[in-house]
């Protein structure tokens, strides 16, 4: 007779991960909703603080008429796309920067004895809806930009807008995961990770033309951040691509995002494996 044990009929790993993510996130949402007024205040606070980035851009435009040849609505378009996409990935995976601290204090071990993928557990840890503030302000700026940019809309260009948000969130998300894998190896690297994620978001709020060519090359080919908004947005606005990329490049974001996510997955596995063979 074979006894059935819980855990024998497990779902595929990714579904098990999504399930665990949902359970943990729901727990944190319930707990933050216990103090509704405080929740509203933190959302509004988050909205205002993250909105300061756009205020910086507005201040610049009070002195100049264009940035690298881009008008205010065009820069707002870049900003709105990047901020919203980053906001989504920050909402979903923004807690990953505590990973190094959890390894140092040993509480990372407790994640490994639970029957759920570690990535889902660490991603959902302290899930904070206040991060909706960033998405909201990004969305508002994007809305303003869409009303004011001068574009001959085609079906392709219309489709590119939601695609940029989805692929952008995926690319930023992959960056969070790569950063987390790196934190396992170098345990106090949270700031390095933040430089790439939060720094990447700030970078993408400005037109590529204001940066040096080698820098843009790095952001396009090493970290594929240029595919979050620069390349597709250039297409939408009828501007030349940065770096003279081929014509179809604007539509390559899904492929780039997919490849980067796969790479991030491998990096994460390698990181976890190195932890489990060396300990802390």
């Amino acid at each position, binding site marked *: 007779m074979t006894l059935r*044990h*819980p*855990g*024998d009929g*497990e779902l595929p790993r990714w579904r*098990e991960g999504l399930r*665990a993510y949902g*359970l*943990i996130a729901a*727990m944190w949402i*319930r*707990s933050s909703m216990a103090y509704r007024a405080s929740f509203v205040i933190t959302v509004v606070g988050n909205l205002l603080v993250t909105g300061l980035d756009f205020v910086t851009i507005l201040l610049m435009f009070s002195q100049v008429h264009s940035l690298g040849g881009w008008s205010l609505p065009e820069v707002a378009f870049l900003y709105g796309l990047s901020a919203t996409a980053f906001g989504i990935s920050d909402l979903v995976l923004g807690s990953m920067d505590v990973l190094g601290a959890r390894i140092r*204090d*040993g*509480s990372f*071990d*407790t994640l*490994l*004895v*639970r*029957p*759920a*993928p570690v990535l889902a557990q660490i991603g959902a840890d*302290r899930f904070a809806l206040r991060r909706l503030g960033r998405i909201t302000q990004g969305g508002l700026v994007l809305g303003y930009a869409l009303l004011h940019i001068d574009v001959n809309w085609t079906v392709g260009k219309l489709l590119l807008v939601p695609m940029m948000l989805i692929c952008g969130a995926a690319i930023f998300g992959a960056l969070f995961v790569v950063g987390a894998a790196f934190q396992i190896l170098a345990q106090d690297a949270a700031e390095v990770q933040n430089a790439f994620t939060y720094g990447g978001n700030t970078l993408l709020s400005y037109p590529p033309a204001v940066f040096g060519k080698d820098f843009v090359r790095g952001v396009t080919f090493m970290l594929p951040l240029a595919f979050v908004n620069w390349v597709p947005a250039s297409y939408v606005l009828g501007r030349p691509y940065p770096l003279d990329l081929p014509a179809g490049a604007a539509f390559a974001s899904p492929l780039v995002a997919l490849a980067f996510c796969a790479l991030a997955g491998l990096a994460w596995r390698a990181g976890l*494996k190195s932890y*489990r*063979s*060396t*300990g802390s």
Partner: protein
Amino acid sequence: MTEQAFIELDRVEKVFDVRKKTGFMKRERRQVRAVDSISFGVARGEMVGYIGPNGAGKSTTIKMLTGILTPSGGRLRVAGIDPSRERTRLAHRIGVVFGQRTTLWWDLPLIDSYKLMHRMYRIPDARYAENLDRCVELLELGALLDVPVRQLSLGQRMRGDIAAALLHDPEVLYLDEPTIGLDVISKAKVREFLRELNAERGTTVLLTTHDLQDIEQLCSRVMVIDHGRLMYDGPLTGLHEAGESERTLVVDLERELPPIEVPDARVVKVEGPRQWLAFPASESAAPLVARIAAEYPMVDLSVREPDIEAVIAKMYAEQAEKAAS
């Protein structure tokens, strides 16, 4: 029918690469054998103490048994599962309590952690309710359920952690220093609970500890590990014999006197009117106390149990002697 051991280790090794900075950009690599070819088996329902000094390899062994660490060599099975390869499947069948850190969600009320375990482990509702009630009653958690974990005292948190590890009816419970830092009453509660758990549910228990009393009161079998090697595996009484350990009688006399002279005991230390006498751990203290009380002006006394470090140190000295002869 011969049942295989429930926990099985066959020449298990764990080697860590330690890198040490020896100068600018220069690093020296050194290998540390945290666990060095350990073999043992634990039958279902056994309650085993796993002891040894700091850095002996206790926690490393536990981490390999839970799937946190991957062994560098040897074969390891828990309930027929290779922990490092099927970590999440094994997780449904084991419970783990780390004395020094919590598996609970720090900022949330205790009950929230339990509710999450309920869903995450897919514990049937009736079973969950029954197990929770039982733990709440026996571990006296009733008043603590709505308190955020970070506000609990160490003893309360430990009880909360033990409950969390048992909600999903694990077949084996690993406890890494479950009584470290607890006061006497909390220790007693925890021990009492574990004894009942093992007797009633037949849960296999493997615990590491520094406290020899944990072992005395709970375990019929004890394993001693040091420098990654298994030094002893057998009943606790045998450990005393193997270490030929001694207990200590601390006697307070009315005044300063020359060292007490009694058969079967020797004075190891004198400090004013207080004297320390060592006597074999296998002997009863009663006749010794009676004799001293009859011959000396005794004010107070206490008996100290041998600690693990002392026992192991003795075992070592004896091994070294054997090797030399």
